């Protein structure tokens, strides 16, 4: 089986141009979405999946126009409900590679319920959440990830709400792959998305995405090359939690919480192991983005192997067929007490 797959993959000599649809891209000039689109087109040839087996599903919002621009199968859904469509698509045909494209409003506000249940079920799909911390398509209202006090058209005196932390939500809801990346770090973004797409199970990637019209510069601190290294912690497998331009700082774990300290060589440094970290540390890491004195972690927070819903469903069908035999329609209709009239 694996040899056949390898052979097939070798024959798939796609380039990024193969994934460009005939539709004109209609995001605002300068929108962070362009970068995400470019990285997606770049990584798909590497993923080694036939393009007719790829489906992009989205909800409503700026990000959700994404499927139109990919020359694969695509469904532009209704607001917040992409996980529902995607679940049906994947369960009806588990051979498909399914991506969900969503935003902070689509996924965490109107579609919050679907999002958490998707993660809980661990259906094998990859979720890209474009987080720009604003409602763009409806022209600038605060979103569930906007900071408290945000002045927008719907909050002229400042919003009163605490924002959601998408990474924390995905972790809590049970997604088996949870990561964060940024539109303005294309290499990191491409690598993170590729890793997410290869993971079996619900993969979630929060992408910091700049809306240059309604919320310009929301992530400037993290994306600007001048300030990036003091404010971003790149999570890497088996690597100390070091950051700063010269990697001169690190996070020290005192058993309960992280502290920022000057880096010094350590005998037994704490290493990042997203495949087997305790939940307490996953959450401690996720929480750093809510606190100004800490760098924002980007990279993979969690990557765990677990049975997917789609695989379990297939297995259950096989098992029932094994024990009961392939169903016979006439027998089905004639089940139970019957009687004959001559």
């Amino acid at each position, binding site marked *: 089986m694996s040899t056949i797959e390898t052979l097939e993959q070798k024959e798939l000599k796609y380039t990024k141009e193969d994934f460009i649809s005939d539709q004109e891209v209609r995001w605002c000039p300068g929108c962070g979405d362009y970068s995400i689109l470019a990285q997606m087109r770049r990584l798909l040839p590497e993923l080694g999946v036939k393009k007719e087996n790829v489906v992009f599903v989205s909800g409503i919002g700026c990000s959700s126009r994404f499927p139109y621009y990919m020359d694969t199968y695509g469904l532009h*859904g209704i607001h917040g409900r992409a996980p529902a469509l995607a679940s049906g698509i994947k369960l009806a045909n588990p051979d498909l590679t399914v991506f969900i494209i969503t935003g902070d409003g689509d996924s965490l506000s109107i579609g919050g319920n679907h999002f958490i249940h998707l993660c809980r079920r661990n259906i094998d799909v990859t979720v890209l959440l474009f987080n720009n911390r604003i409602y763009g398509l409806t022209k600038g209202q605060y979103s569930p990830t906007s900071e408290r006090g945000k002045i927008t058209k719907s909050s002229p005196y400042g919003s009163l709400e605490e924002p959601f932390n998408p990474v924390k939500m995905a972790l809590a809801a049970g997604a088996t792959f949870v990561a964060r990346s940024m539109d303005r770090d294309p290499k990191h973004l491409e690598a993170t998305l590729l890793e997410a797409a290869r993971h079996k199970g619900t993969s979630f990637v929060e992408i910091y995405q700049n809306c240059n019209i309604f919320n310009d510069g929301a992530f400037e601190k993290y994306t600007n090359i001048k300030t990036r290294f003091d404010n971003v912690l790149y999570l890497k497998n088996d690597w100390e939690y070091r950051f700063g331009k010269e990697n001169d700082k690190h996070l020290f774990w005192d058993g309960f919480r992280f502290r920022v300290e000057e880096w010094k060589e350590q005998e037994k440094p704490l290493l990042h192991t997203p495949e087997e970290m305790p939940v307490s540390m996953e959450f401690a890491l996720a929480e750093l983005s809510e606190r100004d004195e800490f760098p924002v972690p980007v990279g993979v927070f969690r990557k765990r192997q677990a049975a997917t819903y789609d695989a379990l469903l297939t297995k259950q069908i096989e098992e029932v067929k094994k024990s009961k035999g392939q169903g016979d329609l006439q027998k089905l209709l004639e089940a139970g007490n019957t009687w004959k009239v001559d």
Partner: protein
Amino acid sequence: MSQSTHLDQVTIRFAGDSGDGMQLTGTQFTNTTAMVGNDISTLPDYPAEIRAPAGTLFGVSGFQLQFSSHEIHTPGDQVDVLVAMNPAALKVNLQHLKDNGIIIANADAFTMRNLKLAGYEQNPLEDGSLEGFQLFAVPISTLTREALVDVAMGARDKDRSKNFFALGITYWMFSRPLEVTLKWIEEKFSGKPELIDANKKALNAGYSYALSTEVFTTTYTVEKASTAPGTYRKITGNEAVSLGLIVAAHKAGRPLFLGGYPITPASDILHNLAKYRHYDVKTFQAEDEIAGVGAAIGASYSGALGVTASSGPGIALKSEFIGYAVMTEIPLVVINVQRGGPSTGLPTKTEQADLFQAFYGRNGEAPLPIVAAKSPADCFQTALEAAHMAIKFATPVFLLTDGYLANGAEPWLIPDVADIAEIREPLAQPGEEYLPYKRDRQTLARTLAVPGTEGLEHRLGGLEKEDLTGNVSYDPENHHRMIHLRQEKVEKVADFIPPPDFSGAQEGNLLIISWGSTFGTVFSALEEVKKQGREVSWMHLRWINPLPEMLGRLIGNFKNVLVPEINAGQLVKIIRSEYLVDAKGFDRVRGLPLQTHELVEEISSYFEEKK
């Protein structure tokens, strides 16, 4: 020695606390009665509370069954026999009992406390207030405990077998065999020998008690009904829908996918289908009603037969997605097992008040075909037709049933699977030039290309589509054209569906137009009316959208048009607006099927006034 009397038809109602097992008792009587070859029609009538406080009026659960030696279509207006397991059951149901009808009451349950809960000041079994009925006050609880004296169980547990004792009495009274229920007890309580023993003993004891005591003087026999030859089974509407969907999916060469969320009275469709993994049935209990329909649409998009089943409140939540399926033109079957509304309404009661919801309950111009089942067994055929049209026309289709059809049962002549037509609709194939919104000339349906098909990658969504290409289009003329194309497509369904049931002359004084579960009542009412020598024509609609072409031709030939419904007048408004005729409605919206005698009176009035 008792005497035996032949009866043509009998209506019996079992009533007790919601914990007394009345639904089970009624179902057992039904199964046995179906097996001996009577025609049957049942009406389970139970409260929304799972275990309402014992002895209260609102906790009364009833199961009504009419059985007959000839064809019947309703569970009966008034009952011949009332089995009342407590005072509340008597109080609630006495109004349904015919004069000189039989009451079998559990005398042990007529305690001071229970009498008070039911609002009786005196014991009706003793105060003479039941004169005019044939009262059999039987100490059912005591007799059951005596019969189970050898069974190692507590008194409370023994009491739980008392419904089988009552069932035994009725089996003797109506000359029914015990075997069907004895066998069922063994299967149901397999692995619990003490329960098998107790329930069997209680059933036998009830039967023997009736046989050996001098209390009951008459047994009744109801001959087999003469029905079409073939193999029969008893079936409820929800079972029939489930089977119809499985057969439809197989005939269409697609796996069946049900996306659903539990809701009364539709949940049994989810329960039934969940059992059939070995028939390639995928059921998905979603996080909510919206996700249920969304997953069904997603599954249809990738090649399954996508179905969602719910009731009014759930359908309301699904409406945006149903509109999405109209726009993307993806096959979908939406089943609404209607219940009393509005809002949470009467969850366990029947109603036909979601017709407008099916017709108009979406934003924008979003027409879709609507079919309604007329009887529990007819749910099989309508499910097949709904699935067929959904696939053939690439459209969502509404299948309307209701609580009465869903839980009611009747005999079903089991079809030969080989006789059921295939549902083969071509999908776009690799190498074809593919335009997602190019339409078939006959049906105006678009051809689907499912993911996984090489070279046919395309994008769909809820934004307005450009004709032919399916690209997003904001062009004003294109929008106008697409609105009308979607409407015309639904109208084309009329060319592919069977004509409605029609009986009577093509012109006359009165045309009755009905739909859905009122079929049985109208049928029975017209039998009465005919006996009075009156001519009435009757059209029972199966497909309500599109309306049958023949209705437009006929409707003007009648002086009066009457539309009986279990709502405040919905089809009648559609008929009036469609045909500009002065159609009149007849409605009784009580959470129950229409009563035959009321409809007979209404019909008669159309003849009396014209003198």
